[in-house]
């Protein structure tokens, strides 16, 4: 739901682990839980983009009416009278299985291995499954969603479906509309974009993209990718020579 709608939404009362709480109707349950100090693991959530519900780590149990069911909290809209259980045996058991499934998929990710060890006590080398070696991506889709929803470019997307799904540039080729802003790399929880910069050239290995950097006319610092500045130029009304100087020299 849109932000405006949440802002205007009436407050509703509900229960979390036996405690009475209140929040705007239909706002994200996970955001509420995190803001109120509940320790919920998650990987695909980022408050800057819409909830997606892909990683399934933020599972909780919710009782709505007669039914109690397991659900992800990120995309669960808070409703009047619901009762939330964040730490039952069932929740812990299923979150652990989700983590094992994620690890089997992306065993190369240091970040994921660390999280598995610290939060679930899972040794990534002793999984009950075969490992999908050489992979770091967990298909959380943050790169795709950030590029589409925040940057407004949609230079990349998911391709394929089912077990063949991947987050990739069109035709596995150069992501030709990527402006090199690096937002995908910042959002990525498993560090698999491969953002690198060597003096005047920035590269994003996953998208086969190499971009020349703009050099500041005054100090000579390569401060941002040219395409990114062109994009900003196009969507804003700054003067044509605005980006000749780096932000420091502009002051």
């Amino acid at each position: 739901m849109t932000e405006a709608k949440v802002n205007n939404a009436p407050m509703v009362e509900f229960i979390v682990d036996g405690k009475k709480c209140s929040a705007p109707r239909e706002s994200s349950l996970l955001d509420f839980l995190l803001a109120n100090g509940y320790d919920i693991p998650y990987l695909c959530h980022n408050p800057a983009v819409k909830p997606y519900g892909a990683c399934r780590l933020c599972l909780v149990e919710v009782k709505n009416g007669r039914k109690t069911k397991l659900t992800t909290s990120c995309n669960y809209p808070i409703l009047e009278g619901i009762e939330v259980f964040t730490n039952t045996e069932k929740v812990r058991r299923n979150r652990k299985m989700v983590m094992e499934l994620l690890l089997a998929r992306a065993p190369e990710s240091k970040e994921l291995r660390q999280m598995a060890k610290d939060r679930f006590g899972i040794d990534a080398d002793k999984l009950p499954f075969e490992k999908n070696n050489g992979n770091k991506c967990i298909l959380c889709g943050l790169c795709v969603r950030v590029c589409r929803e925040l940057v407004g470019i949609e230079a990349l997307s998911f391709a394929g479906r089912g077990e063949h799904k991947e987050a990739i540039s069109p035709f596995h080729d150069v992501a030709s509309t990527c402006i090199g802003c690096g937002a995908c790399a910042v959002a990525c929880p498993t560090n698999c974009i491969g953002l690198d910069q060597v003096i005047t050239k920035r590269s994003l290995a996953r998208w086969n993209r190499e971009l020349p950097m703009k050099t500041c006319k005054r100090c000579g610092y390569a401060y941002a990718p040219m395409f990114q500045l062109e994009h900003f130029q196009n969507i804003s009304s700054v003067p044509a020579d605005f980006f000749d100087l780096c932000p420091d020299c502009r002051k």
Partner: protein
Amino acid sequence: MERIKSIKQLQDLEATLAAARKSDRPVVTVCGGIGCTANGCQKLVAEFKKLISEKNLGDKVELLVTGCLGFCEMGPVVVVYPQKTFYKKVQVADAADILDSAISGKAVERLLYTDAEGKKIEKEDDIPFYKNQKRELTGILGVIDPESIESYLAAGGYQALAKVLSGMKPEDVINDIIKSGLRGRGGGGFPTGKKWESCRKAADKLGASKRYVICNADEGDPGAFMDEAVLQGNPHTVIEGMLIGAFAIGSDEGIVYVRNEYPLAIKSLSAALAQAREAGLLGKNILGTDFSFDIRINRGGGAFVCGESSALIASIEGFVGEPRAKHIHMAESGLNDKPTVLNNVETWANVPLIIKNGVAAFTAIGTGDVTENPWNGSKGTKIFSLAGKVNNTGLVEVPMGATLRDIIFGVGGGIKNGKKFKAVQTGGPSGGCIPEKYLDMPVDFDELSKVGSMMGSGGMVVLDEDSCMVDFAKYFVEFLCEESCGKCTTCREGLARLKEILTRITEGKGRADDLELIEAVCETLSQGSLCALGGSAANPVLSTLRHFREEYEAHIFQKKCPGKVCKKLIKFSINDNCTGCTVCAKNCPQNCISGARKEKHVIDSAKCIKCGVCKEVCKFGAVTVE
């Protein structure tokens, strides 16, 4: 045809058209359903046409190509009216004899159906396959021409719409559908009238003027073809159902989302929509009232997941079919965020029936008592597509509550080649396998879920003793691995891991704790996934594990496949029945069978790929599989 301008004119039309179409000529009906098409009925139709024109028989006999007549096993099927003589497996060369006999009134003996005792049966209604059905929806498929709106009108078509428009209020229509106890035929079994009611209420509350009705014809269950048959054979009944639904919720736009793999149905529906528009039954101010409604077709892109409602809607909106979380109901926010009602083909087809014949006629069929609550029973009939190792494969319609035995043995004529029944798979990849001990269970929405399966859309695949339940579970898991949209970890990775575990079990490398691991993965897959595909994806595995656990254990601990299917666990050899006829050696693709003529042959196990061709071609039962 000419535009129908008023309700009165439509009501009069049934009698006029029926009278005009009534003739003394015998009618030769050729099944044009998908099964008979696969058996070459188009050539047969061409031959009939050729003979009729060559011999100038146009005023003596009428030719009618219909939708699916149901008895696919016997296809191509021809039925001659008025006697209703049923002819099976009709070849092009038989056409002349059938025409002669249609005119003379004497049946062609050699083409008649022969029952299990070897007795010839002449009339369609006397054949057990038909006699044991209740063909409320499918019966009409045999008498109407799918390409002619007049044909549907003459059979009483659009009279339910006339009834609705001549004084019923939307609330009355919704009430009738609730009272009838009609539940969604697409799988979930949600009461249709309740769905309409909540949509109408939500839309009125929101003040939404735009509302949609959608027909889900993306029949993705492999092994199911009921919706294809209804949509192709009687497209107008689906249109009429949608018209009534649109009137009830106050919608002016409908969409039929059809599987791209169903070209016959798309063709038939497109033609029907054009005819209905021309007749003034779709479009602005239908029959001179202020009710306006039109329907367009959306072709699916080939994705099983698009049968899931939120994925289907994403697909219609021009996106990939990724399901979204459904905490807010479609009745409130569906297509383009507008209130939407979505029902499948068979559900829509039931609507005109209920309105026209009345609630009482509908509730007289089926189980439970729905006077107070539509959840308390399953009413009406259900169409199944009966396939697999059963004698009479085809399209089968029975009252809700018929037992599996009624369907598989009564209508289906039992198991092929005298083999033993092992299980029946219902509900497609979301359903499960039901073993012999439940054969006398009445089939309705609630009973099937009690034993770990579900109604699904109505696919029914029969398995005999030569099937391996582990291999069968693996088949569905592999199917779902490809058809999952891949969004959730639990569904995508959970299925991939199940495939990994089941594969090693079928290869004799199963581990002692694999069954517990399967159960643990299945819990997270079924309860932790976002949509119904993931939520039900564990059913084929859990149901086989529940009813056939010993088969899993045989694979894991004895390294044996009781169904003798899993290649890594079986061995082919030749026994003393061998006469040395050399047929097996000639057909072996690996050339690994040797032996002199008239002497016992030997299979070289090292080279054998266990394809089973030798066993298939041997006339002496000399190939043993262990």
